[in-house]
């Protein structure tokens, strides 16, 4: 009985540690990008923090969703719909391009600065 309790404790402790490690790894991997910049016809349409969950209607051409630190295209008025099938992006420099709609969605941050002197 005593031995069982001890084993339980070790089991619980290791599960907690694994959970913590997984959680931290998850956080680090998604911390890289800070914002999504949407460009339409070569001009910046808007910049949106990855921290804020929201849906953005981009000029009636497509709808971008920002959720849990990731950006994806949820619907598109163009026929192909390739961009909707693209996987969600979250790291600095990653892009989703909708060629027919001339829309580029890019994650900024990482290499950028927080202030300048």
């Amino acid at each position, binding site marked *: 009985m005593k031995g069982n309790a001890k084993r339980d404790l070790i*089991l619980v402790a290791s599960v907690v540690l694994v959970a913590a490690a997984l959680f931290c790894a998850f956080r680090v991997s998604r911390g890289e990008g800070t914002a999504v910049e949407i460009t339409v016809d070569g001009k910046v349409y808007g910049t949106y923090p990855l921290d804020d969950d929201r849906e953005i209607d981009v000029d009636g051409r497509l709808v971008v969703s920002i959720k849990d630190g990731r950006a994806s295209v949820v619907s598109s008025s163009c026929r192909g719909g390739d961009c909707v099938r693209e996987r969600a992006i979250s790291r600095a420099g990653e892009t989703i391009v909708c060629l027919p709609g001339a829309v580029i969605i890019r994650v900024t941050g990482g290499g950028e600065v*927080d202030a300048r002197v």
Partner: protein
Amino acid sequence: MKRVICRAAALLLAAALFLPSCGKTKKRYSVTYTEFFDTVTNFTAYCVSESQFDRAEKAVRDKLGELHRLFDIYNEYDGTVNLATVNRLAGDGVPVPEAIGDLLSVYGLFWYDTGGLLDPALGPVLRIWHDCREKGVLPDTDALEAADEHASFNRVFMSDGVVRFEYPDMSLDVGAVAKGYASGAAAGAARNAGVSDFVLDLGGNVLVSGKKPDGDWVVGVTDPTGEGFITKLAVTDASVVTSGDYQRYFEVDGVRYHHIIDPFTLMPATRYRAVTVICRDPAYADALSTSLFLMDEAGGAALCRKYGAEALWIRADGTISKTEGFSSYER
């Protein structure tokens, strides 16, 4: 079988208890002010909730507003003794609020350490340059020399919270240290409101506290000759300040006249395009950047050692030099 179920329940419970507390991720919030110290101020912080950010942001705003009014040399405010009051009345002696005394004490240190190069009593001279900058004309040399007649900090007396000038025509200008001092006080207000991971940027006078969830805050050092950065610095719990000839200036006949005036020549200092300082104390960081801009490199490096600071000089010819420890902040 029963024991196995108990064990599984215990595991689930442990996981359930652990994850939510760990999963309280902080979000990035930001606010910009334009009403303080004649510059653009940005406060960016990671907070657990919007209401937490709102509390910190209000504390920062209140503190900056209070110090802006105290250090204002152009306007007086009802019920407050500020530097404009001091400049008007200190011929007879004026009791001053603690923050003004503190700020002048910092000046006292650096006035001594720089052999009089950093001098808040240069007010009358800086006033002429300020007016000329707004009109875009060059100052009259005789007028500058007349303004300089009593312009020395050793003619300012401070005791028991009373400031007195030796001559009534003297005046103080605290532009070289006020923003740094104010950023330090405002950072204290933010921490008292429970926020410790933030950047407070008073127009290129940047105080960095704590970290971002994904690492250090990054401060870019402006390239005076172009759009980009000379270097990027990863800092935590320190201030980064640049004094540069491109920050406030005017041009006459293609010659640039900037805002950092040498008290001995009464003209803009010409050794460097810019000097960047990293120092833990925000007021010292601000004082050091202006001091170093006015000094030779050896003297500046000695001052950095005294205050535990690091510096980067961009010389007038565009070449660069650094203190030994500066590179450890570059990324």
